[in-house]
């Protein structure tokens, strides 16, 4: 209980902050950190008598209320029933474009990743898309993606009510400014400096001398994470839950 907040716990806590106000968040099956962040928000809201947070974990039986097939997530997003979603990507560039397809040419990419999944759609329709990629390096955070799975901004005449809200990595938190199509450094995680972040990032961004340290959870929140949230997580992500500090 007395041990310091770990980097993973900081990320989970930061995700919960980024989700503040959402009613329904969807996460992928292999996304334990976003799920943990959503569970934390749900628990905090309940504690403070704020509104319910619904969490849909795609592919899960227990944490997934969909009954109309895999297309229901996309339909729901289009209906405005999903407030937040997470995207990763092999590359993310300074304009908020994400690449889940490959690097080094297309179609015969030298490095091929799985593919775009639903990104080319959900990025337009889910109001708050949180870009989450733990690795913070010029290899991932590039000036220009090799393939645009989903663009960060759209021109006039394209229906768009969603898009990038923030970019969270192991080292820093950026917000996305959709009016100018650029990231803004909001805070730097303990142990890093703004200068580090500049070096670790392959694109230019605003507020690059930011001196704000990413806020860490208070003791009560940390206790909640190490108790209730860890237990809830274990149902769906047993290995991941076991890797987190516990309350003992």
């Amino acid at each position, binding site marked *: 209980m007395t041990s310091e907040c770990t980097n993973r716990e900081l990320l989970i806590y930061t995700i919960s902050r980024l989700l503040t106000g959402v009613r329904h968040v969807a996460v992928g099956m*292999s996304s334990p950190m976003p799920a943990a962040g959503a569970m934390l928000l749900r628990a905090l809201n309940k504690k403070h008598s704020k509104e319910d947070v619904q969490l849909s974990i795609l*592919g899960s*039986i227990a944490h997934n209320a*969909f*009954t*109309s*097939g*895999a*297309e*229901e997530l*996309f339909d729901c997003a*289009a209906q405005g029933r999903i407030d937040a979603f997470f995207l990763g990507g092999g590359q993310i560039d300074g304009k908020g474009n994400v690449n*889940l*397809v*490959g690097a080094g040419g*297309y*179609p*015969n*990419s*030298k490095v*091929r*990743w*799985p*593919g*775009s*999944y*639903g*990104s*080319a*759609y*959900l*990025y*337009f*329709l889910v109001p708050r898309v949180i870009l989450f990629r733990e690795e913070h390096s010029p290899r991932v955070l590039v000036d220009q993606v090799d*393939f*645009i*799975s*989903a*663009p960060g901004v*759209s*021109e006039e*005449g*394209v*229906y768009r009510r969603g898009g990038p809200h923030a970019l969270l990595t192991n080292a820093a938190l950026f917000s996305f400014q959709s009016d100018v199509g650029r990231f803004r450094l909001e805070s730097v995680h303990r142990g890093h400096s703004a200068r580090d972040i500049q070096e670790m990032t392959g694109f230019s961004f605003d507020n690059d001398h930011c001196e704000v340290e990413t806020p860490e959870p208070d003791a009560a929140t940390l206790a909640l994470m190490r108790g209730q949230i860890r237990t809830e997580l274990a149902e769906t992500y047993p290995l991941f839950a076991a890797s987190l500090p516990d309350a003992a």
Partner: protein
Amino acid sequence: MTEFVSPEIMAGMIPSGIKLGLVPDGSGSCPGMVRLLIDQGIRDLHVVCAPIGGMQVDMLIGAGAVAVLETSAVSLGEAGGAPCFGRAVRNGDIRLLDATCPAVFAGLTAAEKGVPFMPIRGIIGSDVLANRTDWKVTTNPFDDSEKIVVVSAIQPDITLIHAPEADRFGNVRLGRLREVMLLAHASKKTFVTVERLSETSLLEDEKLAAAVLPAMYVSAVAEFKNAAWPTGLYAEYEVDDREVQDYAQAARTPEGFQAYMTGTRSAA
């Protein structure tokens, strides 16, 4: 009207050169049948992943059976990237139709509803769109100021799935995986392997009926226990993680893939 056949006879009913519909690993994937198809030397498939592919698709690619791959992703899940897929992409061995999940569903919905196209929001500005000549950007007929994508109908010749149960009339229980229902509606024919056969009609139980694919869509059924191994079957059995990892490891080279395919037992 549904034929009841052995897995081997069913494999023989699936010829080279067709547009083949497949579902994601664990949602009705059927690596047991895929291995029979590979054994009989199937070639030149246009595989439609509805909407993504896994180990069974990677095996088909590794065996050189795939000419065109239409998919939103191929992955082995926890076991990582799909090795034969990655290799085929690098070498230009397959023609890629990269998609995004809801666009695949929209194309299947168009086929289900018998319309030539479906509109879909999003996608504009992506390189996914830039590389699809069968998708177009049009104007919303009710609002000239909006550009919107239309995708053309996707109608597989044959869809191949594994399911928990079929009855003697050819009705198949899919459970809540209604995307499999969509794929079957969209396809000319659907072939189904099942864990078991029910002697009583699955449509008689009102509580069950919504989970059932009616026989009119089902051309053939084969009882084939464990045919989803090692990829798992939703609400029936889990993925065999160890086996998929072994495959992922072996398939990193063409030789390793061949050795895996000849050396490993199939589900049969």
